């Protein structure tokens, strides 16, 4: 009984290590291909359109509502201390450093990551990737790389748009609805937010962009060539990306704070 349990545990540990190793090797291969991939910029532009431009609506809408909620909650909390004038600071720092990068990454995994994984999985299932190999076209170079680069380039831009719209959302609720003084809102925000805070968000979103794109591309490329396999790859993309993003977020915050 105990021996069986130990064996099971060792097996799952081994599986986890194998997955980590496979991810690392795949990532190393993608980064090695990076300079050459940048030469085919037309392919990257197409993928940036898919991953970035098509995610704009959901990102902007979510940013607006997250900002508005932040405005309401922040106002309710700060009013108790009589310091509702710092609502701008609270909203801006919260959005720039945490909510912007993290929520954008989660939405990105749901919107663009799943699309990438299922597209690649379907290519695998319908033997399109094998056909490319037959024609001496490297599918990693031709299909995977543009999607990976497009995704990681889109992420920081999406996060910046999210934060900006969020700040305006908080301003909408705080200033227009709750009556926080507009001058106080902006000037306290400007006095408290530093260049480093914006950069912290940018660094985070770049890291999340790499993580989300890598997970999506990896799961799609290595999916089983069946209908079930494609479905499972899509699910795993969302689950793995979300967990990895939250884990990385904690580690990055601990390092940069």
């Amino acid at each position, binding site marked *: 009984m105990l021996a069986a349990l130990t064996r099971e545990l060792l097996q799952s540990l081994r599986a986890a290590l194998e997955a980590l190793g496979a991810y690392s090797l795949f990532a190393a291969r993608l980064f090695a291909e990076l300079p050459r991939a940048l030469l085919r910029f037309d392919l990257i532009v197409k993928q940036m*359109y898919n991953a970035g431009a098509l995610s704009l609506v959901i990102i902007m809408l979510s940013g607006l509502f997250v900002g508005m909620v932040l405005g309401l909650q922040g106002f309710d909390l700060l009013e108790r201390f009589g310091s509702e004038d710092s609502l701008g600071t609270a909203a801006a720092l919260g959005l720039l450093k945490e909510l912007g990068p993290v929520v954008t990454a989660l939405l990105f995994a749901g919107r663009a990551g799943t699309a990438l994984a299922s597209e690649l999985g379907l290519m695998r299932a319908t033997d399109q990737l094998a056909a490319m190999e037959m024609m001496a076209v490297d599918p990693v170079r031709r299909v995977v790389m543009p999607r990976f680069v497009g995704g990681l380039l889109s992420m920081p*831009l999406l996060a910046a748009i999210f934060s*900006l719209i969020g700040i305006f959302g908080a301003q909408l609720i705080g200033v227009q609805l709750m009556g926080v003084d507009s001058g106080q809102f902006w000037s306290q925000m*400007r006095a408290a937010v530093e260049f480093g805070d*914006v950069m912290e968000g*940018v660094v985070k979103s770049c890291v999340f962009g790499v993580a989300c794109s890598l997970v999506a591309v990896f799961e799609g490329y290595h999916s089983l060539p069946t209908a079930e396999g494609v479905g499972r790859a899509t699910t795993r993309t969302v689950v793995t990306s979300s967990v990895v993003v939250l884990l990385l977020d904690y580690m990055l915050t601990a390092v940069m704070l």
Partner: protein
Amino acid sequence: MRQTRAIELGTGLFVLLGFAALFFLVTQITNREFGLGDGGYRLVASFEQVGGLKPGAPVSMSGVTIGRVEEIEYDFDQYQARVTMRIDSRFDRIPEDSDAGIFTAGLLGGQYIGIGPGSSETFLADGSQMQFTQSAIVLEDLISKFLFSKAAGESAGNAPEGAKK
């Protein structure tokens, strides 16, 4: 061909929007002022107590921001905090007998340096040391002084009564 064009247009718009957002965040939301920083000149002042003053805090005269705190270090020759300020070169006529004090903006606001102009005809130049400084007020000190003086007053009032018994 037509479709590629649309895709390129969409991507271009997206990238433009993204960079515009980043630019706005950096220039409008932060306290970074471009153009101030490499220009201007330095002033040095020593304080007994800088409180919560931080590099980047504003230096103001009559409420007008004229520069920023660049560096705060401890000076072992004088056993005081040594604050280096960078003043914008437009404000180059600060009398040399001006005084610098550390104040708090509002009850919960950040601390800043306020400069009160003196009456001298000669002006402070790059690297010069300010003579008169006023330390930051530490709220705990103020409260403890107040409480001690109150306690001392009470015990002084009670002393004769105790002596009678």
